[in-house]
């Protein structure tokens, strides 16, 4: 019988399952919102309004239960993600860089979207990881802001954010939410910061991105990586 204690046991990558659970949670949350926004139960004649109301309440309870279950599983069973204080320049050389990058993008994008008033947008950690693998490693010799600009356009192209069209953020002009929030995360990721400053730096990067929204939107619409890199070069020291 083999000695189990001496066997090397590698944990499976939990990211795909985490991604699936988040997708399910998003579907339930957004689906519920859509039904409530679409159906005007009070306008129905009785007893139809009573029946419809009861069905919606029941469906809402089921959705909430599944939502709590998926949230709980994603966090406790699969392990929660943590933010990073490693600047992008140093992160790129690390052995587990793709996973750390995509985890940091997920956590920080969630925080930025909450700050911008758009909390129920779906963020794809898998798309962020694939973008990193495709773009960051091959460009090892390029300046960090050039890599960051390529990653910014890559993250947008890979649709790391989904469902933004259904939710307009209060702080960002229409249509610029994806570009502004991803720019904010990449700006923050390049800044030097301690663990104590990590959160305030992310909020500062978000506020700066909102102030730069017209310039960011223009550079992104023209696929202008040089312009995005120039914005990073100019503003990273001021986060």
């Amino acid at each position, binding site marked *: 019988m083999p000695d189990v204690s001496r066997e090397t046991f590698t944990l499976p990558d939990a990211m795909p399952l985490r991604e699936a659970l988040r997708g399910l949670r998003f579907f339930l949350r957004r689906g519920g919102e859509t039904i409530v926004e679409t159906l005007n139960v009070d306008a129905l004649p009785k007893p139809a309004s009573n029946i419809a109301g009861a069905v919606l309440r029941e469906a809402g309870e089921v959705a909430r239960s599944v939502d709590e279950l998926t949230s709980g599983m994603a966090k406790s069973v699969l392990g929660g993600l943590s933010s990073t204080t490693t600047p992008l320049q140093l992160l790129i050389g690390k052995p587990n860089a793709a996973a750390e990058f995509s985890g940091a993008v997920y956590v920080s994008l969630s925080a930025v979207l909450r700050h911008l008033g758009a909390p129920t947008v779906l963020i794809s950690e898998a798309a962020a990881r694939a973008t990193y693998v495709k773009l960051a490693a091959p460009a090892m010799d390029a300046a960090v802001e050039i890599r960051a600009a390529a990653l910014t356009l890559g993250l947008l192209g890979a649709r790391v954010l989904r469902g933004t069209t259904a939710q307009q953020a209060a*702080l960002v002009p229409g249509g610029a939410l994806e570009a502004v929030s991803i720019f904010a995360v990449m700006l923050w990721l390049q800044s030097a*910061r301690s663990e104590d*400053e990590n959160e*305030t*730096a992310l*909020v*500062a990067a978000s*506020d*700066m991105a*909102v*102030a*730069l929204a017209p310039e960011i939107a223009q550079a992104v619409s023209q696929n202008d990586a040089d312009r995005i890199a120039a914005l990073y070069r100019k503003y990273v*020291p*001021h*986060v």
Partner: protein
Amino acid sequence: MSEIKVGSAALPPTNEPLRVAVRRLRWFKVAFQGFVEATGRDLGCAFDIDDAKLAAAFMRWLNAIEMQKPSDKSQRKNFFEFAAALMLRELTTDMPVMAKGPATLADPGSAAAFWPEGYCLTMFCLSVHTAAMAQEFHAQTIVDPAIDDLRHWWSFKENSMHDAGFSAGFLQMLLGNQPNWIMPDVFRARIQSDLEAK
């Protein structure tokens, strides 16, 4: 010399030189929030802060500094002072603070009671300037007695609403300089005025 105390001691700590920290939004925002909160307590009126307006003012200030920064190193100290004037210009352009009520603890005839928001922004800029000048040049900032004259504050409020550039002149005046009132927010114009005065 004015009896008004500039509250640079209330600024948050930083491991970086203040001239660097103040150009980081994370520090600037914490400093601004803390200062506004403390001023509100002193005046007996709380302030609301608009973060988006504050960030926009900060970004414009960075750009203004970059555009006007002189290449002549001998002007460094003068430009430090001018940077504070530009900061007040950008803050009064957007007014990121709003008093929730009258300044109940302020002397009824004081600038703070007359215009709490303008007073708060001006004192913030003076505080940052005082701390930065002490750290960089070991220089003590002396505020002009004009700060106690309500007529200057009335003029500041009226004129800055039409042209925020006036705010830059107002702060230079409080720091004991004679601003170029035609272009109070242009550093080169100030140098020219100084040369002509000599």
